[in-house]
Each structure stands twice: as C-alpha cells, then as structure tokens.
C-alpha cells in the first residue's frame, strides 16, 4: 500500500508540475504576441498551412455531418409529423455545437500533431538551441505565429464548416428525404438567433488556443530522440482533443448562462 501511495504522490506532483509548466508556456506564448519583433511572413505561412491545408478535411467533415444529422432527424421528426423542422435542427446543432467541436478535433488531429512533430524534431536536432544561439527567440519566431494563425484560421474554418454542414443537411433533406428546399432553408434561418451564432463562434477562439499551445508545448518539451518526437505527437493530439471536449462543456454551460440565463 505505501508503494501505491508513493506512486500516487509522484503522479500527482508530476501532473501539477505539468499544469504549472503549461500555464507558464501559455503566458509566454501570449505575451510574445505583444512584443517585437513580429514575424508576419511566418504568420501568413502558418495561416496557409493550417487554414488552407485543413480546408478539405473540414469541408468533408462538415458536409457529411450535416447530411447525417438531416438523415437521422428527418426520420425521427417524421414520426411526429414535424419533418419541416429538419433545417432548424440541423442548423442549430451545427452552428452551436458540432461545427466548432468537429472542426477543432479535425484541426487538432492534423495540426497539433504537425506542430508537436515539427518543433520536437527541431528540439532533438538542436535547431531550437541554434536559433537561440543566433539571437532569435523561438517563442516569438515559432510559437507566436502558430498561435495567432490557429486562432484566426479555426474561427474562419468553423464558419465554413457551419455553411457546408447546413448545405449537406439541405442536400440530404431535398434529394433523399424529398423535402422542399426553401422550407428547409427558411426553417434553418428562422431558428437562428445572434446568441446561437455568438456561441458557435466563441468556441473556436478557445479551441484554436488549445490546439496551438498544446501542440507547441509538447513539441518544445520533447526529449528522447525520434522516439520522443513520436511520443510528443501522440500526446499533443490526445491532450488537445480531450481539452477541446472538456472546454466545450465548460463553454457551453457558461455561454448558455450568459445568453439564456439557463
């Protein structure tokens, strides 16, 4: 038993240390955005890599998720003679919840891993040390641009996912469930309030922050050669995905209270 407690003690200390280390890293990353020099060309490169690069998976995920939602909801709503509400169901689900979370998870899988492996490889080959030796702050040069571009691009990708998801739902509603397209879009549009859009577009700002900071954190803390790079990549994807879902719950609760008083 004492052995088990010892392990528990060590594990708790390690976790607390990791949380402290990550918090300090986030603080440094955010403060690096407000200190010169600013690497705008690097920000644009990352916007291209993260935003344009993730567009195909975000479009496909959004379209088919909207389609599946329409398929499932149309069948259920038809039992109550409420098939006309399919558009409302799809748009509310997509915009408030599914588009931000799924886009976050997709971008996390693609980019948090990319950041962790890229920065991790730079750490193990001493490129980060070389950068510091040449008088460049890796926080400003590598982490800052990734953070800024992930937050901005995830916001825009979520808007695209909202649009494509609603369109996917419309395609299913019209071509498979044989509903009226105008009815679908009218229902989808009328159901939406500014609070729904605000909810849906607040989340990607937080998710983008999580993806970039977790990816860069595990990348810059990589130890143990190529095996360490692999480990950092896996950890980055797992931690950022779990944090996105956890954060989604907290944000949903907070935003519902803020906008609806629930």
């Amino acid at each position, binding site marked *: 038993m004492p052995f088990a407690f010892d392990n528990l003690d060590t594990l708790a200390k390690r976790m607390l240390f990791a949380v402290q280390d990550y918090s300090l890293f986030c603080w440094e990353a955010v403060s690096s955005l407000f200190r010169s020099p600013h690497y705008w060309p690097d920000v644009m490169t990352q916007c291209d890599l993260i935003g344009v690069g993730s567009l195909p998976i975000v479009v496909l995920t959004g379209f088919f998720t909207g389609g599946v939602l329409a398929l499932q909801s149309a069948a259920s709503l038809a039992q109550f003679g409420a098939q006309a509400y399919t558009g409302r169901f799809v748009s509310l689900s997509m915009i408030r919840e599914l588009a931000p979370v799924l886009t976050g998870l997709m971008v996390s899988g693609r980019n948090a891993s990319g950041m962790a492996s890229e920065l991790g490889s730079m750490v193990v080959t*001493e490129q980060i040390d070389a950068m*510091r*030796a*040449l008088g*460049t*702050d890796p926080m400003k040069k590598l982490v800052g641009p990734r953070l800024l571009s992930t937050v901005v691009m995830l916001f825009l990708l979520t808007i695209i996912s909202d649009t494509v998801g609603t369109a996917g739902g419309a395609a299913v509603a019209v071509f498979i469930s044989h509903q009226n397209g105008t009815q679908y879009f009218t229902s989808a549009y009328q159901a939406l309030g500014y609070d729904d859009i605000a909810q849906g577009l607040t989340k990607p700002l937080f998710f983008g922050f999580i993806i970039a900071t977790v990816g860069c954190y595990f990348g810059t803390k990589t130890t143990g050669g190529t095996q360490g790079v692999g480990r950092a990549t896996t950890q980055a994807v797992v931690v950022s995905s779990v944090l996105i879902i956890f954060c989604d719950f907290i944000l949903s609760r907070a935003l519902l209270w803020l906008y609806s008083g629930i």
Partner: protein
Amino acid sequence: MAEPTHAQSHSQSAAIGAETHPVVLFENVCLRFEGPPVLEDVSFQVASGETRILLGPAGVGKSVLLKLANGLLRPDCGRIFLFGEEITSMPEDELLKLRTRTGMVFQEGALFDSLTVRDNVGYQLMERHLPVDEIDQRVHEALRFVELEHTYAMLPASLSGGMRRRVAIARAIIDKPDLLLYDSPTGGLDPVTSTTIDELIIKERDVYQTPSLLVTHRLQDAFTMVSHRYDAAANQMVPLPHGQNNANTSFLVLHQGKLIFDGSTEALVSSKDPFIMEFLA
C-alpha cells in the same frame, strides 16, 4: 582541483595585458539534472585572442559546459561571465542580444532543415533585415571561406555530414563574432573530413584571431590545432616547427564533472594525473 600551469597564468596575463575582462569566465560553476552532478565547481576563463580546447571522454558534460557559456543553460551555482557581463541570471531577452556577438557550431551542425544553405548562413543578417544584396554578398564570402560556394542554393538534406559542419561554421562566422564555440565539430566524421574541419578552425583562428572554446574528445584534432598554423599563401594548414606549439591555444580537461586540468600543451603531455595519462595513452 585544476593543476596550476603556466597556460593558466598565460591566459590571466593575456587578459591583464589587454586591460580587458576575459571573454568567458566561469566561477565555481555547478550543474545537476537528475542523478549525479554534471559539473562541479568548474572555474576557468577564455582570454581575448585565446583558443581553449576542452577535452574529455564522451558524456562527461563538455557540450553542457559549452551551452552554459552561451547562456543556453543556467547553472545551479557559481557565476558565468560572457564579455564581462554576468549571464547567470540574465533575462532571456538580454541574453538573445548578447548571443548575437557569439558564433556557435553545434555537434551535428543544427542547420535549419527547411531553409536553403543561403538562408541558413545568412539567417542572422536576415533577422536584422539587412539589404538582400549585402546578405548575398556576405553569404558568398562566408561560403567561400569554407570552400562551399557551390552549395548556395542547396538544402541541408542534400549535403554530406562534413559539408553540413562547414556550412555551420560559415553560419557561425558570417557576422564576425567576438567568440566562437565549437561543439565536437569533427564528431562522427571520417579522418579526411575531420582534417578539413580542423584546417578551417585553424584558418579562422589564425586569420580572424577570434577567441574560441572548442569541445572535443578526439586527441588527434586537439593536437592538430596546437601543432599547425594557417599558411595564407598556400591556403592550407602547415605544421609548426618541431617542438613548437601555438602559444594562444591551451587545454582544459573535464573528468567526472570536474575540471582536472587547465594549462598548456607541454603541461598536458607531462601531466602525472592518472586519468590524463590514460586518456592520452
């Protein structure tokens, strides 16, 4: 305890003679990660115009010491001075500025693999937003120094190990640093390529006379450094007359985290320390 030698007094007198502070000064530095201490009570200095060769077996903490000298790591105790400024607890922003005065050659070159040779060598100049023409001209000069001008547009992945080290040397010297730090520049290279790298380091030492701290575990490279000079007319290194060594090049020996020797070539080869005798055998 480091052996008192005339090289130590030489470096001290060189510093006094120049009426300046040492370029690098370690005072009772210690460092520990996990397990036994990596460095214990390490004190030495690098004076202006001096080349110091840090010898020791692999894994003894030589690279760590070099990173401490450049502020890439911080000691647990003791004090480190770089260009007369204490860097032991200097904020990273100030350290970054100070590091632009040093050039560092890493063990495997540490070239940025996504940048071309031109961008790697001219990195520091690009960071300072110098005109493109000036950057190009200085990159060509630096690459000419290491005789790799033809690699200008190549990516590091298409270079051999030895070429990468030479590009790393070009990157380190392009901004005419006040101190050069070499981390096992010949490690893992074949003897012929190692000799080419040694020749470049000797050329740099004799042409620019930049103070430097060189880490290696290869005795052959170390003794080549002290027994050769650069002949500008022949554009190659030539041996010094028999029994003569470069007066500005001296040795440090690290063993089990402690500096056990600090002195000249003559003092090193005549040392009675059992470890040094075995190491040199």
